[in-house]
């Protein structure tokens, strides 16, 4: 092993501290889910008698399974939609010259500056007049495309050489085939990153699903868990149990996709 230089020691110490700060709440969540309700407010990490009762209870006595299904459908459908449309729009903005291109791009970028809190009221009015209140589609529609995704994909598509697209044109592909078979495979790192962002964002979305849904059968996991905290008491161990289960898909998505976030294949078909 190489001897550690002082700079590296400092760096590693800082990273370790950062890591601990990040992981502590998660550990607490996991620990609390294994505690009994009498033990919840004792602030030691390890449960005295670890038990899986909470898990059994939340899965059998609450509609948690249903919420999980709703969340999963919402998150995967919106992610699929974001991946498809954002990359299509990003590709068009990066690779085609047309009148108003810059304007469209700036317009899309400017949506990034508007916080969700400001949008929920217009969304609500819109959903109401279109009859989307308390429907699955109503939960999903604001997340079907994202300005950030368009920006991200555009930046990556800018790096795809025009020559490759011309080569595909000579090979007789139509414009959609060029996008699908040539350009898209070259930006898989960006697609993976975007998939993670989109999935996590929609999986943990709270404010909008809370507003648009009223029947518990359409609650997403965060909304459902929040409904567990009542007016006079909050079942923290239940909420933490639900949260622990809810972490699993996000972890899976991350583990499956992060392998793809390696750049480098991009330019290898060209020189050097």
């Amino acid at each position, binding site marked *: 092993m190489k001897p550690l230089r002082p700079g590296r020691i400092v760096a590693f110490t800082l990273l370790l501290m950062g890591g601990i700060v990040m992981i502590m709440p998660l550990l607490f969540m996991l620990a609390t889910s294994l505690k009994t309700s009498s033990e919840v407010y004792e602030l030691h990490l390890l449960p005295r008698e670890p038990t899986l009762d909470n898990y059994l209870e939340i899965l059998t006595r609450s509609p948690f399974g249903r919420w999980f299904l709703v969340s999963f459908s919402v998150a995967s459908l919106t992610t699929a939609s974001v991946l498809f449309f954002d990359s299509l729009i990003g590709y068009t903005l990066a690779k085609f010259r047309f009148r108003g291109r810059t304007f469209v791009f700036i317009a899309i970028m400017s949506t990034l500056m508007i916080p969700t809190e400001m949008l929920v009221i217009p969304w609500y009015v819109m959903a109401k007049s279109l009859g989307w209140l308390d429907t699955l589609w109503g939960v999903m529609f604001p997340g079907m495309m994202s300005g950030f995704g368009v920006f991200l994909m555009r930046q990556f598509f800018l790096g795809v050489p025009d020559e490759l697209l011309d080569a595909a044109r000579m090979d007789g592909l139509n414009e959609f085939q060029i996008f699908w078979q*040539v350009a898209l495979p070259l930006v898989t790192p960006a697609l993976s990153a975007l998939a993670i962002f989109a999935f996590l964002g929609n999986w943990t979305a709270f404010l909008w699903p809370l507003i648009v849904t009223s029947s518990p059968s359409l609650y997403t996991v965060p909304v459902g868990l929040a409904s567990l905290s009542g007016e006079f008491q909050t079942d923290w161990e239940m909420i933490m149990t639900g949260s622990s289960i809810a972490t699993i898909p996000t972890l899976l998505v991350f583990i499956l996709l992060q392998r793809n976030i390696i750049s480098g294949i991009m330019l290898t078909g060209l020189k050097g």
Partner: protein
Amino acid sequence: MASVGLRAIRKDFGRTQVIKGIDLDIADQEFVVFVGPSGCGKSTLLRLIAGLEDATSGDILIDGRVVNNVPPKDRNIAMVFQNYALYPHMTVARNMGFGLRAARLPAAEIDQRVTAAARMLGLENLLHRRPGELSGGQRQRVAMGRAIVRDPQVFLFDEPLSNLDAQLRNQVRTEIKKLHQDVRRTAIYVTHDQVEAMTLADRIVLLRDGRVEQVGTPTDLFERPANRFVAGFIGSPAMNFLSATLENGEIVLPWMRLPAGIAGSGAVEIGIRPEDLLAGDAAPEPYRFEALVRVVEPMGSEALLVIAVGGHEFQVRLMGRIHPIAGTRMLFAINPAELHVFDAATGQSMPVVQAR
């Protein structure tokens, strides 16, 4: 069988005129090279023929048929790109067969064509590699293979050698020439390297600023340049130019007078190629002059010199294994048969009648 014709082709990008009216006929099986300085519109012209750009006006004919509205894939052409443009995520075999697959050829036929092309180019062992795992020369050959499998009537090349090192460049250049002799198809080749143009072309089209300066065989352009620009562009080292005056059929230089056989008087520019400045005893009297040898670059069987006379410097290419010494004075002579005279105002060549 495919000829290519350009009729009054113009191309504007927004307000910039890039191609300013080009007429050209390329015969079937001919190897034509577009050459010219950077930015003169060579690639644009090639892309117009390929169908990757639409002409602003004018007609493009392939095999006598106007193809202005025919998409690239139906023009029966293939193109080799400057940076190879191989699909990085596909193997060599898939890269080569991609166009055929898009055309829905049966898998067996694709296989057979790819194998045949790979054998021709010595790529058999690389078919399962990805472009990233190939050397520059190998990528170049895959790019050619991709063009060959389509069995096109016309091959288009856009500076295919510019990313290879000098040694490989010569080798691949020879391969391209051989390929052309084997497949006998029309080829249009873009380069800004005049050596490539001279060695490959049946005919050279010299472009400048969106216009054709001269069309002809390499020998035509070298020996009978139409104007000063062509004369300066073709040949390496470049032609020496010098302002002079024409007085009653004689060219007057500050230190000598040359018989030119051109009637009239006025300002002219004379051009002498470095290889047409000879050692003094090789030409008769009126063409001789004494000059100071400034620099000597020996190159084995020849030497490149810089000589100075009358306040001017000339490049000289002197054949022979015995080289002069820098700093000495020496007798030189202008090869009378190869003296070029250009109108100083228009740059056009003026015919020189030799009084031999």
